[in-house]
């Protein structure tokens, strides 16, 4: 019985609950259910999915004796998990309608894609962090900030949809439930601020260890990581100064996250002390 609940089985359960939440939300929307009823149903499914995903990642963490960030599969799962965690806080604080549906779709896509590409999970790094909790915290915070930027991408997408709907006078259907432009602007600003703060802390921690051993981090990883941080920092500063707002801000956030996701490959492949272990095919 216990073997049924392997880490991957738990992660599958989590992903399927996210998918169920997304589909239930979509069906609810087409039937024009009340946003309150929709939110309750969605949250139950999403909390369930998040719980199973947490258990699955926890099991992998126990095996790897550290934060489960040993390969692309685990990193993508962790990004989805982080985005969902941030949604629980943002969603309950700002009551942004439809954000749960968008997050469910996003988390389900990430989780299912990572589960359906076995190559991402064939090899796993071991002793990635050299038993150093600070380096582990640095990595976890960095990936968590990707979760925040993922949610920012969703709210940016919602802003683009709302803007398109209002500009083109297409106000019914899905658009009817979207949050207001001002609310989305405010949330985007806060999310980019949170993401940059987390990534800054992460890089500060990483940098404090890096200066003791400069060769410990390969140059491509360093450049990509600092590049992502710098790009988001510039976006934050431009937004703060009112130079990058509205649709342009949303587009930049959308494109930047795509690039940031692509950067995970080089970052993952250039880890110091990466000792690949071939996992048993599942």
């Amino acid at each position, binding site marked *: 019985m216990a073997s049924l609940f392997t880490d991957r089985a738990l992660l599958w359960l989590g992903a399927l609950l996210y998918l169920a939440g997304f589909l239930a939300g979509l069906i609810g929307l087409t039937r*024009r259910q009340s946003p309150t009823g929709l939110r309750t149903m969605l949250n139950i499914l999403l909390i369930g999915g998040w719980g199973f995903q947490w258990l699955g990642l926890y099991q992998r963490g126990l095996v790897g004796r550290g934060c489960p960030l040993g390969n692309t599969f685990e990193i993508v799962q962790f990004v989805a998990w982080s985005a969902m965690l941030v949604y629980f806080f943002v969603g309950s604080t700002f009551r942004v309608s439809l954000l749960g549906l968008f997050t469910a779709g996003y988390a389900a896509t990430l989780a299912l894609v990572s589960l359906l590409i076995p190559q991402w999970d064939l090899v796993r790094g071991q002793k990635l962090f050299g038993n150093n909790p600070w380096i582990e915290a640095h990595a976890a915070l960095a990936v968590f900030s990707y979760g925040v930027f993922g949610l920012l991408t969703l709210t940016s997408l919602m802003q683009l949809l709302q803007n398109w709907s*209002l500009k083109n*006078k297409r*106000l019914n259907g899905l658009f*009817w439930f979207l949050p*207001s432009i*001002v609310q989305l602007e405010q949330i985007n600003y806060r999310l980019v601020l949170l993401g940059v703060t987390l990534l800054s802390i992460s890089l500060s921690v990483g940098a404090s260890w890096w200066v003791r051993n400069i060769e410990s981090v390969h140059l491509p990883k360093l450049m990509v990581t600092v590049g992502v941080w710098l790009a988001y920092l510039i976006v934050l500063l431009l937004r703060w100064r*009112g130079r990058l*707002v*509205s649709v342009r801000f949303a587009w930049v956030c959308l494109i930047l996250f795509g690039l940031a996701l692509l950067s995970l490959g080089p970052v993952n492949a250039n880890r110091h002390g990466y000792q690949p272990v071939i996992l048993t095919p599942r």
Partner: protein
Amino acid sequence: MATHPSILFQLGASHHTAPLAVREKLAIDAARASDLATRLGQITGVREFALVNTCNRVELYGVASTADAFPALHAALGAVTGCTPAELDSAVTLRQNHAAIGHLFAVASGLDSQIVGETEILGQVKQAYDAALAQHWTGPVLNRVFQKTFQAAKHIRTNTGIGAGQISIATVAVDLAGRIFGELAHTKILVVGAGDIGLKTVQAFQSRGATGITVASRTLAKAEEAAALAGGWALSLADLPEAVAGADIIASSTSSPDFILTRELIAAGIKRRPARPLFLIDLALPRDVDPATAELANVFLYNLDDLAEIAEENLAQREAEVAKCQAILADRTAALWPQVAHSLNAPGTS
């Protein structure tokens, strides 16, 4: 001696049955409503009653021991309203038992309203019931029926699209503003032109909590007069550039043959507050706002045709929901009726 069941009835007139001239007579004020209630209380066999009295309907709901009470009810209505028997005969309808419940459900849910899906009627039915309850005019039958009515109306509002979307120009504009700004309490509204339609739109915004109103007109005296009515500040058109930069919503309704709000003016204004969107409502014919302003980022322009089209779409959507609502209410009426019938058969009510 054999007993026969009491009758749950609805007797009254609405915009569906009575022309405006008759409805004007039937519209009764508080004093006449009180007079009517006194007369109803004196009719032998009428055990419970409540009066739903709105601008479009006067309806009595009650429980009568026998059908013999109905002519007296008719007469009481005639005496209080001054309607002739012929007018009452043509305007007043009588529904009994199952049909009366179904009608009350439809009324409270807004299905029977002149503007389908409007919400005000539910509050009016609640007020009518509260007044009747306070005066001890209701009893076990009406109490149950009204409570179930409120549940049914709430269910309809929550689970169908009958109340979705606004259907007047002013409320459509307010709805759109909500989709841009969310809360309207802190939005700054600039009304250009002191015309009636602009001020009506302001009233709609004020009903949603907006307080920062400024009126700009060609002459300051006119602007001051309109601003006094709207409870806001007054400006002349010469101050528009400054006012545009500070406004979140601009409703324009002047009679100018040229554009008052040009692309350049709006672009200059939005540049000074780039992070906040600007909602332009062009209520004028010929138009006051240059259509090219719609191309500016963070600017949302709606003219009279746009607003009217949205209102029509919303109304069509509401009407498309009517059949679904009727089916839900029919089920609820069928479920409630056996309980009410049992109460009507109970010895105390006959």
